[in-house]
């Protein structure tokens, strides 16, 4: 692959996983954003957006509870999107390529968090010496420099040599395996939704999940319509509970 594109990919992955700015990485590291940028780079904006959105949907519900990352949407996107655009892979094949990297990315994050234990022990010494600058460096500068090497290098290398290898492997891959990966792409969104259910799914509120589910399954409403109806239902419940409290007191 083009050297410049690989450098860009390495940098985009670094940016997307740097976590500088709370929640900013959710945008800068999203396969959607990667799809937009790489689509522009390759002059295939529509394809880029569609592949990016399809990969994004796999990870739409993923949240990092207690800092633990279940899957890395950024690595999945930054490897699969440029290679798919370069070699004209179908969206299903791009998903098949993205999924394994989504798993690998978790290990890169674990390296980062293990190495961060060192900086906090350093920062304690700076706190003792009232060195605000030192704390700043331990909180942001050093972890970020280290992260650059952890993230940039693997992505740079994989995207640089990956396209040829991937074309070779994908050509040799039997249709059955490709079907298998596209099934994985269809099931994996369930992972994120299940995690959110674990967090907010109180038993007495579960009927609302089923209302939303079957509103789409039977009535075929789209996402925006669901958001509108969902907000109205939530508002009704909120106002009722406030009124009830007023009557009680």
């Amino acid at each position: 692959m083009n050297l410049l594109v690989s450098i860009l990919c390495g940098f985009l992955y670094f940016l997307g996983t740097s976590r500088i700015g709370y929640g900013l990485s959710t945008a800068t590291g999203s396969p959607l954003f990667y799809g937009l940028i790489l689509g522009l780079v390759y002059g295939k904006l529509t394809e880029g957006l569609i592949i990016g959105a399809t990969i994004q949907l796999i990870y739409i519900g993923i949240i990092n509870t207690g800092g633990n990352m279940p899957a890395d949407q950024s690595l999945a996107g930054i490897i699969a999107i440029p290679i798919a655009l370069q070699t004209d892979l179908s969206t299903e094949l791009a998903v098949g390529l993205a999924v394994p990297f989504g798993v690998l990315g978790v290990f890169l994050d674990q390296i980062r968090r293990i190495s961060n234990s060192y900086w906090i022990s350093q920062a304690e010494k700076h706190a003792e010496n009232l060195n605000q600058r030192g704390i700043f460096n331990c909180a942001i500068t050093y972890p970020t420099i280290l992260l650059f090497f952890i993230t940039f290098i693997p992505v740079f290398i994989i995207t640089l040599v990956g396209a040829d290898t991937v074309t070779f492997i994908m050509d040799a891959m039997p249709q059955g395996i490709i079907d298998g990966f596209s099934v994985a792409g269809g099931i994996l969104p369930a992972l994120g939704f299940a995690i959110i259910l674990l967090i907010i799914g109180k038993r007495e509120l579960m009927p609302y999940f089923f209302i939303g589910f079957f509103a789409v399954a039977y009535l075929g409403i789209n996402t925006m319509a669901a958001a509108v109806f969902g907000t109205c239902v939530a508002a009704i419940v909120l106002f009722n509970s406030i009124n009830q409290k007023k009557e009680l007191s």
Partner: protein
Amino acid sequence: MTSKPADPIKEAEKRALSNKDLFKTFARWYSVVEVSNSYERLQALSFCFALSGSLRKLYKGDDEGYREALKRHIQFYNSEGTFGSMIHGVTLSMEEEKAKGNEITEEVVTGFKTGLMGPIAGIGDTLIWGTLKPIILALACSLALNGVFVGGLIPFLFPLAIVLIGFGMLKSGYLLGKESVMKLMQTGLINNIITSASILGLFMMGALSSTYIKISTPIQFSVMDSDPIVLQDILDQILAGILPLCAVFSIYFYFKYKGQNYNKLIIMLIVISLVTGFFGILSSS
């Protein structure tokens, strides 16, 4: 607290930290929340760094007090970053009292932080990460799938919302102080808001599950020469979306009863997908 603050906004003029100081604290926090996240103490270093500037101002000329404060806030801390900013605000207001020489022990400050970080994480995870984030991403995806390029930029609404809400939380935490925040947490209002947010979140999770989990079965039976019986048609007649629903709840119950080992589960899911896809038991559609 000095006196009963009748009007916290007016009171603000007498406070040690200005709006600018508070914004700087928030900007520091916002920038580094997860950067130095470690297994040992999670967000502790970010918390300490965020407060370091304002603490210096509060403990002006009191190096010993400043040192103690820094060390106090480099201890274990983990909450949700947006709503958690309220804890920073309250902590600063307590440190302000302490710096003035009022009787506030270290245990009170630390106890407040550790006591509140759990419940606040519950609110933040539900509202910000469990509800707002998937809704924004889902809207962005549906635009991008139609080739609309704005879809690729819509995810940036998410960090924007975090900045607006988070700074508001930090500021109100500082101005209201510990007593008011505790009182607010004890009224039912917060609970009502969490419940309504959960309802919206669950409703959306249901809708998104139904829209974006795409599995069906291509299995067909042919009996003699008659038309083949398509299994998926039968399933649809029993209950629309039965397979996606099974997928969500299988994972849900796996996590609930077998612990949250994500790596293991993802690898299991991929193996199951490969096998069922290879043998034509499931397909994505």
